[in-house]
């Protein structure tokens, strides 16, 4: 019987072999061709733990540590192990009630399951920490402390310089520069922390750990064969004088504005105050987000680094540069005089430009008394210089000077969000007034630092350094050197001198003489410091907020000592009213005294007190503050942050982060385009509206150019 069925053996063999072939094929598919499973296995089976190195320490010019690290502790909880612990004690120490306790435990379980550790309270205060340490035996093993490194500011000053750390978000991840960061890492969001992120961050270490099915760590992957150790961030030495910085912040209390002091020889920034400022430690620690929202929403805009991001009309401080141009272009001589009979009538009698003092001025005195008519005449001669074939070309020559002085473009300083300011070009004028349809009269306001021109405080300070050095400057910067060398080549541009225009020393001597007179016997007498020869220039800047005229900004800039300049400084007090000599000059005087003498004379301490107490914040800020306060009470911080962003974007105000800055710029441009279109429509209605007086027209048309602070 069986013999007949022997062929069936082959069928069975075929079935067996066929099945195994199928299995082989699937094994090849799974193990050789699918990479998906390897990824899945790595994701669930191994854990890539990032070891964060300590960030680098920042020192000031005297070697004092001004930005360092400190350890704070988080209280961690493993919800699965808290059964027998003393909940009441814990609630007492942390000052929470049982509902809050339950809420936290539940959210911990939701986030990390009950067998893994979650943060119960982050960044404990010293007091809570001490109490918890005493009672930790009652709380173990469910609770334990975990240390974490945060930034520490020993002098509690310089928030706008250092910037702050923030969590990495999706916007940052899109940027290829920040490859290797993951969501939730801390990264420098602005200030030095951002510019020198690569230096300060150091190199993160990676530990590969094994993880089990319940997400618990069971050991190292192959005994740490693939691990890399963390390398601490490099320390940096800056040109900051932290005591001067603190003094500046103190003097600028209750004022809006900025002080920038630069060492003219090195370009190193000695102090950079933006007021109002904030306590830098507010943006570390547990309440970071809440504080951030409040700061972001404040109408005084403390997060806005005015020193580099605010562009103001330079006002009369601009006249010193006009003197340089005029002399070097030989359109005037040192003995050239202009007499002011009350106003500048060179452009007809429509709306003449008043001068402050009547009389006849030569250059030195024109600087001393800040005579408008004189500099309007200088500008007239520059623009109508017969040396050049056309207005366009002579304006282009003027532009070259301004660029050489460091205006009209970003200097390239080492904190982010620097603004370029504005120097009008022939192209701009042709655009605004029509090609060839403008003349030097449209320039009158520019000559005295109003109108289409705008500069940032850092640019003005740098301009002072240029005059102090008699013809050169080094790009202002904060960091002088980096421990173990400048590996990322961040500092090389801060070593070279910029001296594009070869202006002879004799010209500088005249201008410096005028500036010395300003302080000795002119508009800037308030800056006088006994025993120090200070050269300076006041400025009183008209400005508009949403088309409404505001109290004047007070400006003062200068350098000292004249013969061996060690500090070039500029100060702006927004909307202070009165003149630059009234408010800005004394502040500069005190700053110079402190820096050069290392202390302030006893007799002058009263002035420090006076200015510290002086409140010059315009009333509109207070009224806006009130409306924000009522909002703050209503909503939680997350909402406020969102709201704050929306508000800022709506108003088209610059943010303190470059990425966002660019987005906002775009929005602004679009807005302007819409405006232009509307204007073009109006053009067809009446041509008269397009060509009003220079000062008024520009102010109405482009308030942003005049002043970005509203």
């Amino acid at each position, binding site marked *: 019987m*069986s013999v007949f069925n022997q062929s069936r*053996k082959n069928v069975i063999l075929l079935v*067996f072999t066929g099945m195994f072939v199928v*299995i082989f094929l699937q*094994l090849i598919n*799974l193990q050789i061709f699918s990479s998906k*499973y390897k990824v899945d*296995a790595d994701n669930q089976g191994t854990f890539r733990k990032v070891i964060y190195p300590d960030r680098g320490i920042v020192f000031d010019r005297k070697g004092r540590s001004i930005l360092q690290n400190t350890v704070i502790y988080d209280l961690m909880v493993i919800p699965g192990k808290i059964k027998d612990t003393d909940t009441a004690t814990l609630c007492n120490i942390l000052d929470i009630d049982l509902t809050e306790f339950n809420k936290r435990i539940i959210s911990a379980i939701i986030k990390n399951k009950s067998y893994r550790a979650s943060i119960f309270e982050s960044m404990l205060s010293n007091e809570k920490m001490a109490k918890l340490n005493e009672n930790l035996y009652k709380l173990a093993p469910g609770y334990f402390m975990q240390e974490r490194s945060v930034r520490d500011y020993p002098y509690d000053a310089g928030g706008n310089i250092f910037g702050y750390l923030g969590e990495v978000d999706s916007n940052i991840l899109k940027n290829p520069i920040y490859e290797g960061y993951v969501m939730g890492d801390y990264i420098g969001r602005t200030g030095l922390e951002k510019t020198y992120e690569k230096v300060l961050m150091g190199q993160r270490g990676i530990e590969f750990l094994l993880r*089990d099915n319940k997400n618990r760590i069971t*050991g190292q992957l192959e005994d740490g064969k693939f691990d890399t150790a963390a390398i601490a961030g490099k320390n940096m030495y800056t040109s900051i004088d932290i005591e001067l910085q603190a003094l500046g912040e103190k003097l600028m209390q209750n004022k809006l504005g900025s002080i920038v002091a630069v060492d003219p020889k090195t370009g190193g920034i000695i102090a950079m105050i933006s007021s109002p400022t904030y306590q830098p430690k507010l943006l570390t620690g547990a309440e970071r987000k809440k504080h951030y929202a409040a700061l972001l929403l404040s109408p005084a805009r403390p997060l806005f680094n005015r020193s580099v991001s605010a562009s103001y009309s330079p006002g009369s401080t601009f006249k010193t540069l006009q003197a340089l141009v005029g002399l070097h272009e030989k359109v005037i001589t040192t003995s050239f005089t202009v007499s002011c009979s009350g106003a500048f009538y060179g452009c007809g009698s429509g709306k003449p430009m008043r001068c402050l003092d009547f009389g006849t001025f030569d250059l030195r005195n024109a600087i001393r008394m800040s005579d408008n008519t004189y500099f309007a005449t200088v500008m007239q001669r520059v623009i109508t210089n017969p040396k050049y074939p056309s207005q366009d070309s002579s304006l282009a020559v003027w532009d070259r000077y301004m660029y050489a002085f460091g205006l009209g473009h970003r200097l390239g300083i080492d904190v982010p969000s620097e603004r370029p300011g504005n120097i009008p070009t022939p192209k701009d004028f042709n655009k605004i007034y029509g090609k060839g349809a403008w003349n030097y009269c449209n320039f009158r306001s520019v000559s005295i630092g109003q109108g289409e021109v705008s500069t940032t405080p850092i640019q003005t300070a740098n301009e002072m350094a240029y005059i102090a050095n008699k013809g050169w400057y080094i790009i202002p910067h904060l960091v002088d050197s980096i421990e173990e060398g400048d590996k990322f080549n961040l500092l090389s541009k801060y070593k070279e001198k910029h001296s594009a225009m070869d202006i002879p020393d004799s010209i500088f001597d005249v201008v410096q003489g005028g500036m010395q007179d300003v302080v000795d016997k002119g508009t800037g007498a308030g800056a006088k410091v006994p025993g120090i020869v200070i050269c300076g220039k006041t400025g009183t800047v008209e400005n508009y907020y949403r088309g409404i005229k505001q109290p004047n900004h007070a400006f003062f800039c200068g350098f000292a000592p004249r013969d061996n300049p060690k500090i070039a400084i500029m100060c702006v007090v927004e909307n202070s009213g009165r003149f630059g000599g009234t408010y800005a000059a004394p502040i500069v005087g005190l700053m110079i005294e402190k820096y050069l003498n290392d202390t302030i004379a006893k007799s002058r301490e009263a002035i420090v007190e006076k200015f510290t107490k002086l409140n010059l914040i315009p009333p509109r800020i207070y009224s806006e503050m009130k409306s924000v306060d009522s909002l703050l009470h209503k909503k939680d911080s997350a909402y406020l942050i969102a709201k704050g962003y929306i508000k800022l974007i709506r108003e088209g105000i610059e943010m303190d982060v470059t990425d966002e800055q660019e987005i906002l710029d775009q929005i602004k441009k679009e807005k302007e385009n819409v405006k232009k279109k509307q204007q073009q429509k109006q053009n067809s209605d009446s041509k008269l509206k397009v060509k009003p007086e220079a000062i008024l027209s520009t102010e109405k048309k482009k308030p942003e150019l005049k002043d970005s602070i509203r």
Partner: protein
Amino acid sequence: MYSKNLTISKGIDWPMVWLYAFIVIFGIICIYSVEYKTTDNFIQTLVGFKKNYSKQLFFFAACAVLAIFILLTDSKLFTATSNISYLIGILLILATFIVGKEIKGSKSWIPLGFMNLQPVELCKIFTALALSKYLSMPETDFKKPKSQIIAAAISFAPSVLSILQGETGLALVYFSFLIPMYREGLPPGYLIAGASMAVLLVVSLLFEAKTLLIAFTIIAILFFYFNRRRIKRNKQILLIIVVVWSFSSIFVGAIVPYTFKNVFKQYQADRIFSMVGVDNPFADEIISDMSVAEEQKIKQKKTEQQNYNVKQSKIAIGSGGFFGKGFLKGTQTRGDFVPEQHTDFIFTSVGENFGFLGSGLLMFLYLIFLLRIIRIAERQRSTFSRVYAYSVAGIMFFHVAVNICVTIGLAPVIGITLPLMSYGGSSLLTFTILIFVLIKLDADRQMVLR
């Protein structure tokens, strides 16, 4: 001593023994890798018998002793006792209904103190022997339907009892006895009909009855159209078409819905549907009270658990790559990601630690093993030995194929062990007996057994 050894080893098929020993030891190594913790002290765990691998080592020693005993017995013992042993096997299964212990959801275990015995597992041996005995009887004419029915009854009786106990995985193993029956002359028509029925069943689970009825009708009309000339000559073809069509329609339209609604319990229906990857369409109509709903929830959880098992199993095997991660270096094995990894999913540790090289080699060894058994089967003079050998081949094949297919995601989760590799005394014991009885019978192949 030497001469006695000679008598034992005379005629023994050594390649079989070596394959057997190699796979078992490889299995123990894999179980060790599953349980391995860096903190373990090797000697301590080995002697302590607390760990599965040391227990398996002990089982292996016991099985080796048993194997020697089997080789020392007379082959005639197996033919002589096959009927009575089958009877005892059936009785043991029945006994579980009374003294059974529930492990992993099936009440099919008898606690013996030192180990738990699963009679259905053991009964495979007795059934193989009983089937061999019946088919080798001179008065059996396997061409007659009566003999076929008796053979099927012998094969499937334990299976039916097993299903009643809720142990479906092992019950399915008894289908492997179709292989020796086919070899002995079971008309292929039965297998084809059976296979078609299975296809019909699966199709009826996958699609709605209405769709299928339309499809069947269209197929029937097409058949009629293309065969219309032949039908003119031979009316019988028309009859076949009509009968097949009406049977399929009734099966899909009436029998399947009726069975799922009235015969099966909710969870059973769910499980069957989840095998083909469809939600139970009759579920709504069946849930009548809370307890059933509760039960359904539990069963649903079980399905999710099974999906998780397969996913983890594929991840572990797939992540092994070509060369594997190396012995004791498998992250998935170390992290306990694969449930039941030491028993039914032992193959995943092979896949992860030793990669395609290791798992492919193991598969190759199993194939060699099976082909060797068939070669042995075909060289037997007595029908008894041949049928028995094919039974062993069938059982082995079914276990290996189904187990591996489950781990690599080609089959729904059916809880059966990987022969000789999986942890567990019952399974190792059963396969040891199956294989060594075969080796003994083969050693005595010159003898004609009845």
